[in-house]
């Protein structure tokens, strides 16, 4: 706004200066036409050759409102335009006059120049001319209007742009805040539910009349729920602790084969409980990646646990580990219940359970895959899933391969 004001003032001043300059030039041209001589002992002034005042009017570029010639004694000699005072009463130089004109709707502003004219260093008279300032005022009015409209518009545009850009910048922050809120809401619910179960069972067990057998049952339930709650808390803490990128000094060269082998040995025992068939396809040679071995173990274990849980008795689970030129890939494929297409995009979300009822019974909290994904991504890898309902699911972890242990 200040800029606009300064701009306006400078423009006004420039225009006025130009105007005055033009007026002055005009006056000098006119003054040049004045002839002053001595005739019969008297000073005589001939204005015939003066533009406007004389009869030979030369065209002038400016429109003068009036022109007046005063003698050296300030007496009026000749004029064009409205009737002026008989005596010159204004000082030399520029002045602004406001004249009321009957035909104009508003008072007209005139710029008046009173020029003392010298011939050979002797004052011969005064030339007074005036021109209407409308030629200056109109453009200035337009400029004023332009600025009056333009400045708020510009300010508005800037504000709007700022607001939009600010909103865009806030987007990721708002997003992650919303995610955090959702996570704490879910975690709160998941923690309160088992706690409520424990408290209710304990208090009702103590209510009169006391039945030892009933108390026995309630205590068993309490201990089961407490254990499952402890498992949940471990998972939550894990998620909370391993949020950011892994520090480089936490990574080391790890042979994936050495991680997977012992896990499969344990797993073989587990799957036997449901008479599931396990097929393992692991290379004999080493497969190196930059990793934190404990975390990788956790991620792989989660996939194995899911396959075991969601595949029925006598089902088949296949494990494969292989390498392309860029990636080390670990795959778990089962022929279990599979995942619906509508659940597939959200299957890695925290607390997401495809089937609420069944997962709760089997002790699932919906965090296993979320943890696996967090681990894999923090290693710079990818985790993907393909699945058809009732046909099974295939989960794949890809990690950047290391060509040589480094």
């Amino acid at each position, binding site marked *: 706004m200040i800029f606009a004001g300064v701009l306006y003032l400078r423009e006004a001043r420039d225009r006025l200066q130009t105007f005055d300059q033009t007026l002055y030039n005009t006056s000098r041209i006119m003054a040049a036409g004045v002839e002053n001589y001595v005739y019969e002992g008297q000073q005589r002034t001939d204005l015939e050759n003066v533009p406007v005042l004389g009869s030979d009017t030369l065209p002038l570029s400016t429109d003068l409102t009036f022109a007046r010639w005063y003698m050296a004694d300030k007496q009026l000699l000749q004029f064009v335009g409205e009737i002026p005072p008989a005596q010159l009463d204004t000082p030399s130089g520029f002045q602004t006059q406001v004249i009321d004109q009957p035909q104009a709707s508003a008072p007209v502003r005139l710029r008046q120049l009173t020029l003392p004219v010298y011939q050979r260093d002797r004052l011969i008279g005064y030339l007074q001319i005036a021109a209407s300032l409308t030629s200056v005022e109109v453009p200035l009015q337009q400029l004023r209007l332009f600025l009056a409209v333009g400045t708020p518009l510009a300010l508005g545009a800037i504000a709007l742009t700022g607001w939009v850009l600010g909103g865009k910048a806030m987007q990721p922050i708002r997003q992650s805040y919303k995610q955090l809120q959702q996570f704490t*809401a879910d975690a*709160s*619910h998941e923690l*309160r*539910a*088992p*706690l*409520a*179960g*424990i*408290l*209710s*069972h304990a*208090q*009702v*067990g103590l*209510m009169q009349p006391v039945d030892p057998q009933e108390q026995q049952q*309630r205590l068993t*339930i309490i201990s089961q*729920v407490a254990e499952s709650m402890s498992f949940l808390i471990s998972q939550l803490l894990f998620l909370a602790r391993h949020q950011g990128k892994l520090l480089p000094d936490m990574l080391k060269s790890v042979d994936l084969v050495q991680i997977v082998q012992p896990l499969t040995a344990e797993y073989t025992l587990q799957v036997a409980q449901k008479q599931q068939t396990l097929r393992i396809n692991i290379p004999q040679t080493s497969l190196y990646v930059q990793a934190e071995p404990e975390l990788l173990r956790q991620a792989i274990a989660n996939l194995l646990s899911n396959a075991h849980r969601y595949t029925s008795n006598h089902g088949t689970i296949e494990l494969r580990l292989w390498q392309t030129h860029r990636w080390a890939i670990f795959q778990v494929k089962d022929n279990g219940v599979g995942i619906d297409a509508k659940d597939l995009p959200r299957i890695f979300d925290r607390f997401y359970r495809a089937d*609420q*009822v069944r997962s*709760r019974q089997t002790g699932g909290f919906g965090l296993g895959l979320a943890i696996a994904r967090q681990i894999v991504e923090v290693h710079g890898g990818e985790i993907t899933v393909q699945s058809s309902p009732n046909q099974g699911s295939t989960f794949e972890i890809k990690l950047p391969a290391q060509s040589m242990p480094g």
Partner: protein
Amino acid sequence: MKILLVEDDPIQLEPLKTALSKSGHGVDGVQDGDVAQRLISERHYDLLILDWMLPNVSGVQLCQHYRQLGKCSPVLFLTAKDTIYDKVTGLDVGADDYLIKPVNVMELLARVRALGRRSPLWQGDMLTLSDLELHLTTLTVKRQGQEIQLSGREFQLMEYFMRHSRQVLSRDQIEQALWEWDMEPESKAVTILIHRVRQRLQAVGAEDWLQTVYGMGYCLSSPGHPTEAAFV
């Protein structure tokens, strides 16, 4: 009171149901939102206790539906959703109380009693009909200085009749009020219960207060009441 308890976690549902039953209430315990929706439309309850996070239909939707049906029994939310916003939403949608899990069972029972005092008029922890008193906390009947202890079902029957005193209640209504929604009592169960309650009322000299209205049902009213002349 007849209570509908909606909670999808069986580990939490069972002890609460047991606690409420031990206090003399008839409890329909339901894990599924859809089933709950049906029950609140078809049956009468003196109190609803709702969890919020349910599969299919949420507790909030159940409460809204209940109020839209024009029913005015109190509703209590029992939920893990604990923010101020949740509490405000729950109460604004028509609930009378909002408790956050885990809840102390004694506190829950006290609040249930408190809500029971208000339906439909303030009644206190004791229901009265003329000089017959039914004490809700001790499950006893008292009249003219005599006091008798009632068993669970007997108490529920007396409570039901005293909350709807001087009204004729049909066999169906009595079954719905006293037995769980998915249980079918034997055909003579109500008759036998009425008979037993009349025997208990003998001890306080009020056995003919519980009258049979042939073809319609039963009615509890005191002898001084004008309608008694119509029935014998």
